[in-house]
């Protein structure tokens, strides 16, 4: 019986390749992202850059890294873009079903448990490093989830390749009695630090402020780093004669011919008569 899900058909071939043919296993690609989360007095602020890289090339200069899990539970994801999007989508589905069947509004802790159990089952092969933040009836929560399934609960978190740069800013600027504006500007500065100092991060800054029964998403709140200063004016204008002519072929223009249905033309002739 055919089953869906992940396909492990090539595992035996890979084992043979490594043992017999001395095949070099390709290295796992680093996460090219800066994602940040900070808890303040009334809620949580999540921030992310917007660059999606495919090796050394920028695949998407303005992608969305902050995903919705529930109305007031959002998750920023670093790692393989497909893994983070599909994992958060699946957990959002499961959480919705759970909240409908229990009749209670979803908790951040439930989303955390679902995510960590899911990721642990795949032993780190699903490379999704997540910063989960939200406000439920118990208050604001912020968690970090590593690809292997380990989690931490902290007042401020940074993940991705730009996490060191962002963490430097967070450590300097964080205080436990911050208000909303201070938290927003701290997250903004942390992401900017990641964008400027880390090669894998870039683009614009996205912010997400979650408070009790309120969520504000600031998409592209800061676009100063993605505007290219020097840009050639489009369209490209080429002077005549700039391309060398190798061959000339002149064809006569054909006259336009109408194809008339035989029966129709006969009927027309009869009508005329």
């Amino acid at each position, binding site marked *: 019986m055919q*089953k*869906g899900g*992940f*396909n*492990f058909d090539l*595992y035996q071939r890979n084992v043979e390749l490594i043992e017999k043919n001395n095949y070099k296993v390709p290295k796992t690609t680093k996460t090219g992202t800066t994602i940040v989360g900070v808890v303040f007095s009334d809620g949580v602020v999540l921030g992310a850059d917007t660059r999606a890289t495919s090796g050394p090339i920028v695949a998407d200069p303005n992608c969305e890294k902050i995903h919705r899990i529930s109305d007031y539970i959002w998750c920023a994801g670093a790692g393989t873009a497909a893994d983070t999007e*599909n994992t958060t989508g699946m957990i959002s589905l499961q959480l919705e*079903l759970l909240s409908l069947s229990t009749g209670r509004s979803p908790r951040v802790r439930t989303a955390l448990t679902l995510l960590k159990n899911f990721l642990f089952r795949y032993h780190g092969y699903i490379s999704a490093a997540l910063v989960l933040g939200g406000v439920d009836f118990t208050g604001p929560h912020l968690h970090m989830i590593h690809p292997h399934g380990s989690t931490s609960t902290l007042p401020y978190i940074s993940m991705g390749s730009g996490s060191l740069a962002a963490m430097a800013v967070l450590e300097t600027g964080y205080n436990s009695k911050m208000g909303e504006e201070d938290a927003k500007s701290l997250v903004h500065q942390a992401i900017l630090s990641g964008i400027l100092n880390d090669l894998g991060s870039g683009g614009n800054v996205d912010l997400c402020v979650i408070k009790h029964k309120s969520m504000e998403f600031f998409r592209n709140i800061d676009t100063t780093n993605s505007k290219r200063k020097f840009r050639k004016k489009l369209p490209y204008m080429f002077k005549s004669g700039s391309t060398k002519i190798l061959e000339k072929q002149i064809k006569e223009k054909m006259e336009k011919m109408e194809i008339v249905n035989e029966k129709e033309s006969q009927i027309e002739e009869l009508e005329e008569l």
Partner: protein
Amino acid sequence: MDLSGLETEQKTLPIISYSSEFLENGLPNFKSQTLPKHPVEKIQINKQKNEREKQYNMLGKVFGSQYPLMLRLEEEIYNQPLRLPCLPSSYLSLEVFRGTDIEVEPEDLYNDPNKSLLIQPPVHQQMEQYLGMTDLK
């Protein structure tokens, strides 16, 4: 030889479901069952069964051994095919009992064999039906 895969793998005899099965899929091959499996694949195969066993163990220690026995009996009843022979059974009651009817797994969302572009429908069967050449009399 990786024996841990063998212990956990459900062994089945080849079941001939339609007459041209060997023509399309080749002769039955038991080699794939003895070769080592990816550790993550082993987890996916055994995860549901292991979790149920853990649950039953826990319930037995808390409520006494007859409670999981009752539950296992109920599960066995639901596990029986209730249709006429050779008709596939949906095992819906088993799914409801196990709680998997409201569970969403990657198997349900990704790589759905019904939506696959590579695997083709049983062409021989469909042609036989169309031409009226089926074995049924």
